[in-house]
């Protein structure tokens, strides 16, 4: 059979175009896989809520690019003289194929052409080894496939990003430190099913943010970051374990914000419990992990250990029926008047957030306010008297004028008088029903002149069990032990002995009167030890 150089050229051209297309395709497969990784990671970071199915479209980037590149590479006709010379070089044929191509192109019918055709015919049996895919193309192919695999892995197992909040969320959280977003929890309450529960959890992120002081928010929130449910839940769980370093509020505004946040959390918890109860009534089932975490997080934010413990019981209850009962119990405990339509939140919508004054917790808050107001008035009176009597002792009077200063109260040895006064403060609060952890005012803004209180564990106590300890009394003070009418042990100051001591020190009459009055105050039943 006569050698057909035209068909030979056609085969070379096809193979070249195919390999050119594959080279382009492999190259773009690699770059496309990189792009898909970047796209998936970016979307996971910027839009954590995006569905995985949506993200999986990023995997089509390298494939689409590769297919397109193949057709582009295949479409372009090769430069035949260059291609043939390259083939000649690879086959070490001494440019015979190229020369024959040139001879045919020029239409020469010389003996050179015929002889070249005979020589090229011998080459045609093994010409394909001269036209192969470059190793670099295989490198791109393997790298591209690896890139796609990596992208798939990232898609299936998202990278653990640190707590990320978008600029928008950051702005919202910053604004929430000034004014609480009260509408979030009620909104979540009206939503349905577990998706709404997730939305409720998301809305509670703002509560967590608002419970932090501004400096901490600045550290934890990064620009261009957005809330991720998982990351937020992780952070919330850290908060519940006490791992987060939250500065204690010191100003009345911060106290009020914290109280509001706890109030919101309690309300959100109540709403979520109600949702769950409605869901479980018709279809008892164990709680999902998301629901469990949401409940625990909200409970941890209420600042009520008892509430947290009961929530944990619900979450850890394997039996769906018993869990439902516990859930019901907890709801009744949180809101005993829930059956009373007049006290339900829906009936008080027209009054806004201030409607919670009708609820029991609002009553407790009111009790806190009264106790706090009473305490402040008494403290003010004492301080005025003391300031008049001991104008030279400025430091002491300043400490007395700052009964809520934690630094002073945390060091019992620094000032025994201040320590005794703080212990009295705690007693006042506990007597006035501040044990629910919701001591803040229930309204949007507390009335002028009132201070919202928050239940806090005593930073220190007198004695291991709160008993009076002699070491805390200033050396030389004549404290005597005695029995009261009820039979309990009490302490009192021997004023006769006190007078003699004061007279020995040649103190002025006014100073002696002030000191005596001071000891009278601290040993009287309502303000003493």
């Amino acid at each position, binding site marked *: 059979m006569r050698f057909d150089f035209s068909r030979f050229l056609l085969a070379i051209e096809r193979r070249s175009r195919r390999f050119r297309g594959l080279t382009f395709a492999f190259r773009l497969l690699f770059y496309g896989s990189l792009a898909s990784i970047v796209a998936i990671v970016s979307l996971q970071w910027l839009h954590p809520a995006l569905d995985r199915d949506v993200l999986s479209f990023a995997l089509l980037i390298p494939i689409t690019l590769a297919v397109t590149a193949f057709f582009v590479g295949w479409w372009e006709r090769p430069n035949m003289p260059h291609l043939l*010379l390259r083939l000649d070089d690879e086959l070490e044929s001494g*440019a015979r194929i190229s020369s024959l191509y*040139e001879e045919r192109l020029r239409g020469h019918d*010389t003996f050179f052409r015929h002889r070249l055709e005979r020589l090229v015919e011998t080459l045609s049996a093994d010409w394909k080894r001269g036209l192969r895919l470059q190793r670099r193309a295989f490198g791109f192919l393997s790298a591209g496939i690896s890139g796609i695999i990596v992208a798939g892995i990232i898609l299936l197992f998202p990278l653990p990003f640190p707590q990320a909040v978008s600029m928008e969320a950051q702005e919202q959280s910053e604004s929430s430190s000034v004014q609480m977003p009260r509408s979030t929890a009620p909104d979540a309450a009206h939503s349905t099913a577990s998706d709404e529960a997730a939305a409720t959890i998301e809305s509670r992120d703002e509560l967590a943010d608002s419970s932090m002081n501004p400096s901490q928010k600045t550290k934890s929130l990064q620009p261009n970051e957005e809330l991720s449910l998982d990351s937020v839940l992780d952070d919330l769980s850290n908060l519940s374990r006490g791992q987060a370093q939250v500065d204690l509020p010191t100003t009345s505004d911060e106290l009020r914000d914290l109280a509001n946040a706890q109030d919101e959390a309690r309300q959100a918890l109540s709403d979520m419990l109600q949702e769950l109860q409605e869901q479980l009534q018709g279809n008892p089932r164990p709680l999902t992990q998301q629901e469990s975490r949401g409940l625990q997080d909200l409970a941890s934010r209420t600042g009520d250990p008892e509430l947290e413990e009961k929530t944990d019981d619900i979450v850890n209850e394997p039996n769906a029926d018993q869990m439902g009962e516990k859930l019901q119990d907890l709801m009744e405990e949180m809101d005993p008047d829930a059956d009373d339509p007049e006290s339900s939140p829906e009936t008080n919508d027209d009054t806004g957030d201030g409607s919670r004054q009708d609820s029991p917790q609002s009553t407790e808050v009111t009790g806190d306010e009264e106790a706090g107001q009473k305490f402040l008035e008494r403290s003010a009176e004492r301080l005025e008297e003391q300031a008049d009597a001991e104008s030279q002792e400025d430091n002491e009077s300043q400490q007395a004028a700052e009964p809520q200063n934690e630094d002073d109260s945390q060091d019992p040895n620094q000032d025994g008088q201040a320590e005794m006064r703080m212990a009295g403060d705690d007693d006042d609060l506990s007597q006035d029903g501040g044990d629910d952890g919701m001591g803040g005012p229930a309204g949007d803004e507390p009335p002028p002149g009132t201070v919202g209180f928050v239940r806090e564990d005593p930073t220190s106590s007198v004695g291991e069990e709160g008993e009076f300890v002699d070491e805390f009394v200033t050396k030389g003070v004549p404290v005597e032990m005695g029995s009261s009418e009820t039979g309990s042990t009490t302490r009192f100051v021997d004023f006769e002995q006190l007078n003699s001591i004061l007279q020995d020190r040649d103190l002025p009459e006014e100073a002696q009167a002030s000191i005596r009055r001071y000891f009278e105050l601290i040993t009287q039943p309502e303000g003493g030890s």
Partner: protein
Amino acid sequence: MISEQDFQAATATFERLRSSIAEVIVGHDGVVRFALISLLCKGNVLFEGVPGLGKTLLVRTIASALGLKFSRIQFTPDLMPADIVGTDILTEEDGHRQFSFAAGPVFANVVLADEINRATPKTQSALLEAMEERTVTVGAKTYTLEEPYIVMATQNPIEMEGTYPLPEAQIDRFLLKAKVEFPSLEALVKITERNTEGLGIQLPEATATAADILTAREIVRAIPIAASLREYISRLVLATHPESEYSPAQVKEYVEYGGSPRAAIALVMGAKAHAFLAGEINVRRDDIEAVYRAALTHRLVLNFRGEAEGISTDTLLDEVWNKTATS
């Protein structure tokens, strides 16, 4: 129409020619090959080397082996153009006085311009027309030179005293420039043996005719060369120009002028002739490489910096060759 028999006969003739030359000339196979290539390409060749290396003997041997009319011009500073091309002289015949043309030594088939750079540029330039157009104009009359025609010039290195560099216009007319190197030990032993024993050097008998050479020239021109190799040769020549996008950094730095289009022609034709002498039926990259330096080395004009730093044109050509891609 060139047949395969013609091709075979021509290659066999030149193989015999080379063998006969090699019996006289020892250790200069490359130089002989360049001389034959120039002959096949209808070009001229310049041999450069210090005195005593056998340049003149080489040319005489080639001329003798070719059986062509040979003339030799010894260039000296006082040589005049008329001494080369000839002049009209007043003659008296049968009582009639008339001017008749006395042809100079340039009228031959093989002209040896020995130590061409010893003459003044004016005299050197007297060869220009003969070298390129194969004609000689004296007065108002132009004489055509007989084919095959080739000028084989020798020159001493430029640095030697009493030499005049060839004008660029003239040096460009040499198809190739071959450097005659000092012979090796074995070659030197053979040279001494042949020159000191027996009858001494005997020029070879003619092994080819003018017709053989002209036929071989036709065959050489018909040898196919791939278009991509032509393009490659063009890129090589362009790369010797400092202003070209193909030129490497060293060329841009040290070269004043690069190869002319004659250089590209010389490369293509030289490669074809080289392929013919090798018995190949098409030009290969090896053929181009074989004549690359010889075709370009005398066509590169270094700038002042290149001259001052003693840059070798061969170094620059190596750089061009290595940096120019095939396709």
